[in-house]
């Protein structure tokens, strides 16, 4: 694919230093997203999806620390940017939507205030102008009667409305990249369908790139152009959605796809064992204890993510007979 990536993440590592040891929540994560395209980031709970998202925006707080890596956007490395400029990038270039729209909105400020402040803090506009634009935005994400809405507080809205508000907030400065961290997990399926459709429409309108974090393979299949599968802090497989779903290369991806109940399917093959803790991970492949195909080669060092086809990469020793 010859698409120009807007966001390029290279070898991003974020660790948490806790009393019990080091948690390698993101370990040399690399991927790119192209304008107008969606990257789905899937993985089990605790595998480091949110940490990756937060690291991109440098929102990691102690005891966490971004150890290394680069996040390229518009030719600058966000991880090296001075705080003033970083602030300019946040919200304007990259926006963030969280899983839980209730906790993402400040309970004591009105919707209007929270939306307008985003605009005001980045652009020299009057309050009135900002509010006008907010009203427009709210209409755009499918919320009627924006004037009234702007005077309301988050708790007065339903879950779906809140998530739309969050989307409006994220889109208010037409960012190039939108990171959506499980935007629909807290919602009912029927509402999820509405929100996803809305997101798709807005992406087409604004031409932004989306990083869609989810653990629902169905959502990825529906929304994403490319998918990255995370396991224990690392990306184990990455590639175009159709390829990954049709011909999953990594044993984990394969197992995952087989373990999801589908309407009409008769047998489920579960992934054996337990998801790993990211605490003091072993040096070898983290999936090894659960891997049905594990072999002697797997006990060596951790496999690198390597190309196995056009735009399709996986990290598994079994795919590549040991080179070195």
């Amino acid at each position, binding site marked *: 694919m010859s698409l120009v990536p807007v966001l390029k993440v290279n070898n991003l590592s974020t660790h948490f230093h*806790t*009393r*019990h040891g080091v948690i390698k929540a993101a370990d040399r994560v690399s991927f790119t997203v192209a304008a107008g395209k969606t990257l789905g980031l899937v993985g089990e709970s605790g595998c480091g999806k949110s940490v990756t998202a937060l690291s991109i925006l440098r929102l990691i707080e102690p005891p966490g620390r971004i150890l290394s890596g680069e996040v390229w956007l518009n030719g600058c490395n966000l991880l090296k940017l001075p705080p003033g400029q970083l602030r300019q990038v946040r919200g304007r270039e990259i926006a963030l939507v969280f899983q839980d729209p209730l906790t993402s909105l400040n309970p004591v400020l009105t919707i209007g205030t929270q939306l307008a402040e985003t605009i005001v803090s980045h652009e020299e506009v009057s309050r009135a102008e900002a509010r006008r634009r907010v009203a427009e935005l709210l209409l755009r994400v499918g919320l009627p009667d924006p004037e009234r809405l702007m005077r309301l507080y988050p708790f007065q809205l339903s879950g779906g409305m809140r998530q739309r508000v969050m989307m409006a907030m994220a889109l208010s400065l037409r960012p190039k990249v939108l990171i959506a961290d499980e935007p629909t997990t807290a919602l009912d399926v029927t509402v999820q369908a509405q929100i996803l459709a809305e997101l798709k429409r807005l992406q087409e309108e604004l031409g932004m790139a989306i990083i869609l974090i989810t653990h629902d393979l169905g959502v990825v299949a529906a929304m994403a152009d490319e998918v990255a599968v995370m396991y224990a802090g690392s990306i184990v497989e990455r590639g175009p959605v159709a390829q990954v779903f049709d011909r999953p290369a990594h044993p984990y991806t394969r197992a995952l796809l087989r373990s999801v109940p589908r309407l009409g399917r008769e047998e489920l093959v579960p992934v054996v*064992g*337990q998801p790993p*803790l990211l*605490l003091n991970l072993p040096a070898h492949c983290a999936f090894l*204890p659960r891997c049905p195909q594990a072999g002697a080669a797997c006990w060596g060092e951790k496999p690198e993510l390597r190309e196995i086809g056009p735009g399709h990469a996986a990290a598994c020793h079994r795919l590549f007979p040991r080179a070195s």
Partner: protein
Amino acid sequence: MSISKNFGAGVAGYSAAGKPAGRARAGPRGLPGEALARLWQDKLALLGLVIILAVVAVAVFAPYIAPNDPVKVDLAQRLAPPGAQYPLGTDHLGRCLLSRLIYGTRVSLATAALALTAIMLISIPLGTLAGYCGGRVDNAVMRVVDVLLAFPGLVLALVIAGMLGPGLLNVMLALAAVWWVGYARVIRGMVLSVKEKEFVLAARACGTRELGIITRHILPNVLSPVIVLATLDMGKLILAISGLSFLGLGAQPPTPEWGAMLNDGRPYMQVAPQLMVYPGLCIMTVVLAFNLLGDGLRDALDPRGITRF
């Protein structure tokens, strides 16, 4: 009949990994072992614990530690400076200051602990009953609590102690009469929330009787915040008792109680500041120790901070 006949062997192929997955971060807190481990990390709390243990030891072994008779008046030795016989000097009646402080540990700790015991004995049953039974029982208890909470606590304690007249016992009664209310409310709240927990429902579903549910499921889960509260309140009670003693409502002479000693030492504030400084320091150290430990315990047992207020 054995189950195995019915159930046969385990369902093959689904065996979870051999060891329990040691979840460090997840899961509800409050296990004695783990809490202790967390407490161990908190140096300040440990300091508090060490001080408290030391103070308790001093209280228990007072007769063996104290160099002199704490109530022996010796006017010839009055306000003596520290020396071989009186390591911290003597008070206005020539009594050994150190010995009095050492015996005072007993009085202060015992008074506060007794008051606390009374508080627990009132509040745990009432709070549990109110929370668990709900309805009319809850209403009755909570209305009483509301009414008592309408008084500023220390004011009511002062008034009750004042009405009853001076004396440590009266001070204890007054404090207990006022203090239980807060506990009852906290306990009720916690019982209410634990009652809704699914493990309680599960216990009921599998036929556990009410009493079993209360004693085995609810109380143990309510206890640790109560312990935190109690630890913090030991300090507050010692302060309150010394305050009431200061006003002259507390210990009777010649009982060596820190608050009363402080009060006795006040006339000599400028000539013999040690008479005020040492009891004051004792009170402060012990209260601080309880605060440190309580704070640490709260972080260890109750990271969610139910007992924060």
